[in-house]
């Protein structure tokens, strides 16, 4: 028997018993939709978290910091050494000094960091207002503040501070004495941006500007950008061998992903229970169909259908119902998820919260559900199909 013919023969139930067939499909659909919706929620939550921390360059960067011992320090030499390592694309150091920032007559303690433009990408620093540096000589007097620093100055709207000027006094420790000197930096600096960091108070200026005013001998951190993610470990190992401490955001993301896979499996498990109930319902329908078609099976067997043909017909019918159930389930799940998300966002907007996408349905997941629902259909069809093919033709003909 040809596959096309088998399909034609096994979709007859849409004509003979449309109500029951569609109800069976709907049953499978509701079960599948539970899985789709719950797992979609898992994916959505994962995305919400990762969206905040993940940028392409950030994931491919290693953060190198000074070890507790003073055996080695990050300086221009080591930076050059890192840069010369194989598979290292770029290196971006951060120098940090204690300073007093003065804005609008108020002074506060803040870290003054000297960085290059590339540091933003590698460290994954996000801006809430303004622009990061662009490594042009024109931004020599630009400065970027953290949101935490803004709060210190009592500025609520980050945009309002853009274009305002600040001045710095750098605190440099005097070697040996335990006291420190304060050196005022020449000139004033224009705020051109605000980062989203609400935890630490700092100001950033181009490294070139900082080093022209203050002698910089060592760096706090160095971002090492590797050329591809599979070199993260080898480069990291090489740097650790030199005695530095290395952390990678990719590790954190990996761990988060693991946790979320766990959550997704758990959610899929809950949905799976609904799916099992639906599958049992479908199995029941297939068994009833078998009884109903017994006579027909007998007739087919006496006009040249092999037991395999009969088995094939029943299995393809089950797969078709399962597959369509999966499709229906995806439609219900996605529409339901988006609807819930929309309602939540309406409520959130009412209370002044930000809109989020709670549900996400990656293509691979949907493809998996499509295949999976067909497989569930197949499994529910196995037993009825076996029975249909093994029934004696004579008994089948005489079955009333």
């Amino acid at each position, binding site marked *: 028997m040809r596959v096309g013919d088998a399909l034609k023969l096994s979709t007859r139930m849409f004509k003979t018993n449309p109500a029951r067939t569609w109800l069976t499909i709907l049953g499978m659909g509701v079960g599948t939709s539970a899985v789709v919706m719950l797992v979609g929620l898992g994916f959505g939550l994962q995305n919400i978290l990762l969206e905040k921390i993940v940028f392409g360059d950030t994931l491919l960067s290693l953060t190198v910091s000074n070890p507790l011992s003073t055996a080695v320090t990050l300086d221009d030499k080591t930076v050059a050494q890192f840069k010369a390592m194989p598979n290292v694309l770029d290196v971006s150091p951060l120098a940090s000094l204690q300073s007093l920032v003065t804005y609008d007559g108020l002074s506060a303690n803040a870290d003054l960091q000297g960085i290059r433009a590339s540091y933003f990408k590698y460290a994954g620093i996000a801006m809430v207002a303004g622009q990061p540096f662009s490594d042009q000589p024109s931004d020599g007097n630009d400065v970027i503040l953290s949101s935490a620093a803004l709060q210190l100055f009592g500025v609520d709207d980050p945009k309002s501070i853009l274009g305002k000027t600040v001045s710095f006094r750098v605190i440099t420790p005097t070697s040996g004495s335990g006291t420190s000197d304060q050196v005022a930096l020449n000139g004033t600096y224009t705020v051109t941006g605000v980062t989203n960091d609400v935890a630490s108070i700092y100001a950033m200026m181009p490294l070139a500007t900082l080093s022209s005013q203050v002698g910089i001998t060592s760096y706090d951190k160095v971002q090492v950008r590797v050329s591809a993610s599979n070199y993260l470990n080898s480069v990291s190992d090489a740097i650790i061998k030199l005695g530095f401490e290395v952390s990678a955001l990719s590790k954190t993301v990996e761990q988060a992903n693991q946790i979320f896979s766990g959550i997704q499996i758990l959610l899929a498990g809950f949905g799976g229970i609904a799916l099992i109930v639906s599958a049992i319902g479908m199995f029941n329908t297939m068994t009833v169909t078998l009884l109903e078609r017994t006579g027909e099976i007998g007739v087919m067997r006496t006009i*040249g259908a*092999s037991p395999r043909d009969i088995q094939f017909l029943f299995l393809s019918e089950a797969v078709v119902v399962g597959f369509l159930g999966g499709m229906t389930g995806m439609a219900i799940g996605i529409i339901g998820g988006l609807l819930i998300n929309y309602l939540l966002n309406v409520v959130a907007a009412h209370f002044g919260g930000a809109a989020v996408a709670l549900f996400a349905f990656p293509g691979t997941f949907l493809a998996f559900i499509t295949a999976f629902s067909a497989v569930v259909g197949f499994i529910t069809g196995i037993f009825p199909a076996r029975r249909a093919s093994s029934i004696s033709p004579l008994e089948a*003909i005489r079955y009333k």
Partner: protein
Amino acid sequence: MIEPIIRVNNLKIVYNEGKANEYYALRGESLEIYPREYIILFGPSGCGKSTLLYSLLGILAPSSGEVLIKGENPYKYDWRQMVKFQQSTVGIIYQSFNLIPSLTVLDNVALPLIFAGLSKSERDKQAMALLKRFGVDQHAHKLGTNLSGGQMQRVAVARSLVNDPEILFADEPVGNLDSISSDQVMGTLEEINMKDQKTVILVTHDAKLLPYAHRVYYLKDGAVEREVMNPEKKQIKQTDPGTSILSEIEKLARIYPYATPNELRVKSIVNFLTQDIGFDQIERLERCVGMFIDGKFTDETLVATLRKAVEDGGPELSKERADIFREKLSIILKEAREIRSYRDNFRAKVSSPRQAERLAEVRSDLVRECGLSLSAEQAERLEELLKFRIRGFIQQEDFRRRFETPFEDGGVGVGSEAARIGSWYLEKLIGQGMYL
């Protein structure tokens, strides 16, 4: 010598073997069926004829014994060979047609080819050709359930032939059909046997179908009781001269298909004792009388046909006898009409002097037939008696009793023999009159 296409050796089929409800459906049958034969397995329900058919079809394994089809035992086939056997060697039609209701007529016919894996265009072509041949092609795209019984069965016949099998089985194919559809389907099967040269094996309990077969196997209680060849068909099974003789009993079996051989013997003897013509002549006589009653024969043609020789299909009566037959027949029909009119008028409460004249006419005919001569008083009493009987107030027995009761005791007072003949004759007249 042609080899049989089907050979059954000592076939036993037992249902629920070894259990309390053990049932012997077939008790050791042996038979041989030759290619291109039309065989009927005939018997009452439960005689095992369908069991035998399904066993030949390959779906009911023998408890013991052997079924050989084209020299091979289908119950030794693996499933592939079995499918091939069912696809290319045998075809079947059922009493209840068994079309698949969810498929169109065309797809139903093409279904065996679908299982055989033919392409759509090819199988539709073959199926359509068969539908056209059996005159149901205009329904090709309807669902099977929207057809009449006769059409459905012709579709089923087309389906059974689409694989071009050598043997066609038919399980009570016309059991659910009216007589016109039944004739069409039987004609189709005969054509398949004669023109397409298929072996046809038909199961039925309907004796009307027996003339279609070359040979009939009479089954009873799970055994072949006898095998009867149809003398009107050229036999395919070759028998050595002398192995079988076509006797009157075989001819009788066709007239009385449900009678056992013993009953047939009895009928044959009683026929000889009571009648001076044989069953053949009686049958032909019946045909002549039938034509006459239907008004298709005039008096002259009736006499001429009655005198026709046996070789020409007539009952070959003598001239005198034919004349007597004609005369009596005319009188009986005339009196029957009088009785009919009398009853109609009586029931319509019409009173007319013709009513009394009718009674008098029947009375005089009855008297003449019994060879009596009655006094005026006796005749008056007989008329009174006739009135009661014809109106339905008294039974045949009452009539006869009062016919022979002595005149002094209130009867007509004829001899008991005359009374018997008289009431017997009267009953015939009444009976004829009722069904005019």
